[in-house]
């Protein structure tokens, strides 16, 4: 259910294993309902689509990745670039979801899955405790199946129907809003210092008026995606309109020169599950598997914003487990075991504390200013007064932002443990 990356990947492996597969999508074509920031990390496709990079509908290959910390007037950037990411097997690429999802679903169809678009799954058909199919909104729309894979994204009403997901959970959801801005290709190349197929991925902290979250800027061929991701709970408490935050970001002195004169080509919004490992639902029920965002498998912790690769990873495993169950009656519990042996659950487990840490008030509200002031202090030439020492600067900056050095040490340690 759902022709996003999770559903398409599941349909691909299940169809390749010889199962009879229907891939159901509510939009008029795969990707038409989907929104993300802009970078797909495709290595997960290596095992099923060797040389995927030759066909993926790429905009640019990310060869430059920056992490920025912003305050209202300052910006600190850690900038990394490598030639290696611009050559096969590549690292990440920017692409549009309407293109990428259509392409991946096309691969599933080539493998023998049947894609049905413009059809909403409205509920599950259950017999006893077992899921035996789905209801759809088409006339005569019941579809019976040995296994149903709920890959219907963050709002997964199918998982909610079984009580696997809470019906509302604003505390563990973030809202992403983004603008696609059009600029001539040469202008993008010049402003971002890239050429040819090279692209840039910028993750930003401290640009959301203290609302826990972050921002991003990604380059496509002739457009730039700019957006912010903010905690739903705190966004509503702050009573700020989401598009205002994008406007803030675009007006920031460090970002404005990049997007000057650009025209908005599309505005979009979508939710992201950010609970991480500790808030995963049960991943299977009798006759049902949950994959991708429906299972909260998006790694959205500050400088990481990865969901498509996890959706694909979990989808591939779900497809395999479903095909085995349908053909030999194997136990669906193998799905979780399979996931545990791959990056999907291992990364999430390792980074289980990351969302809490990165979205914590200190990291969001105080540290950006502290770090920026510290660096500003270090590089401001104060002659004839002699240069202040780093420790004094750190104290002053910590004081100014109300951070106790003890907390700083605690968070540094927690950070070290989390990202170890």
């Amino acid at each position, binding site marked *: 259910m759902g022709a996003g990356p999770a559903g398409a990947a599941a349909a691909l492996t299940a169809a390749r294993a010889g199962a009879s597969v229907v891939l159901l999508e509510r939009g008029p074509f795969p990707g038409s309902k989907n929104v*993300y920031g802009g970078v797909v990390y495709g290595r997960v496709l290596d095992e099923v689509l060797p040389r995927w990079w030759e066909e993926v509908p790429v905009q640019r290959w990310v060869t430059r990745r920056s992490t920025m910390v912003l305050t209202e007037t300052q910006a600190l950037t850690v900038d990394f670039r490598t030639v290696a990411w611009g050559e096969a097997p590549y690292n990440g690429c920017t692409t549009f979801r309407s293109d990428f999802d259509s392409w991946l679903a096309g691969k599933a169809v080539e493998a023998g899955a049947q894609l049905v678009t*413009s059809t909403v799954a409205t509920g599950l058909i259950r017999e006893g405790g077992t899921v035996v199919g789905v209801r759809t909104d088409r006339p005569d729309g019941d579809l019976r199946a040995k296994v149903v894979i709920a890959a219907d994204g963050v709002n997964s009403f199918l998982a909610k129907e079984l009580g696997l997901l809470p019906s509302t959970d604003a505390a563990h959801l973030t809202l992403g809003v983004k603008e*696609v801005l059009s600029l001539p290709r040469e202008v993008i190349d010049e402003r971002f210092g890239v050429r040819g197929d090279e692209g840039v991925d910028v993750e930003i902290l401290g640009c959301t008026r203290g609302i826990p979250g972050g921002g991003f800027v990604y380059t496509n061929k002739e*457009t730039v995606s700019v957006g912010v991701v903010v905690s739903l709970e705190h966004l509503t408490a702050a009573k700020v309109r989401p*598009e205002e935050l994008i*406007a803030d970001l675009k007006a920031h002195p460090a970002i404005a020169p990049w997007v000057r004169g650009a025209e908005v080509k*599309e*505005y979009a*919004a*979508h939710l992201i599950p950010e609970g991480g490992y500790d808030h995963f639902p049960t991943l299977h029920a009798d006759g049902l598997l949950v994959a991708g965002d429906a299972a909260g498998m998006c790694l959205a912790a500050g400088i990481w914003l990865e969901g498509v690769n996890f959706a694909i990873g979990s989808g591939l495993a779900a497809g395999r487990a479903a095909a085995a169950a349908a053909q030999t009656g194997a136990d669906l519990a193998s799905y979780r075991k399979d996931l545990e042996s791959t990056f999907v659950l291992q990364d999430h487990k390792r980074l289980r504390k990351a969302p809490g840490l990165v979205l914590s008030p200190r990291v969001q509200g105080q540290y950006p200013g502290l770090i920026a002031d510290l660096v500003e202090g270090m590089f401001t030439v104060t002659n004839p007064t002699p240069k202040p020492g780093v420790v004094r600067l750190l104290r002053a900056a910590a004081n100014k932002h109300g951070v106790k050095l003890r907390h700083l040490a605690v968070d540094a340690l927690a950070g070290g443990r989390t990202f170890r």
Partner: protein
Amino acid sequence: MSEAIPLTPISSYRGIGFDDRMDTVEFRVAERAHIVVDSDICRSCTTKACVTACPANLFAPTSDGGILFNYEQCFECGTCYQVCNSEGALSWTYPDGGYGVVFRQG
């Protein structure tokens, strides 16, 4: 010639207007409203969280404390029902297959 009078920039005018922003998105409007708001329940709502949170700005508070809602230009993101303050104020479904928002880029 007199000295130039410095003009104060209008800081609240940034980028494009909201209507133009929404015009960049394609919506295939279905006959059935996929989200229905019960304005009577909203009248007793204290947060009116949906009003600022909805990225498409579809919730308009009315003078009598209720909510006027238009479903046509909805992103189907789910923000409103997630932040809604009162049980039962919103009935939220996806639009019928093929209708609703169509992202060209996403």
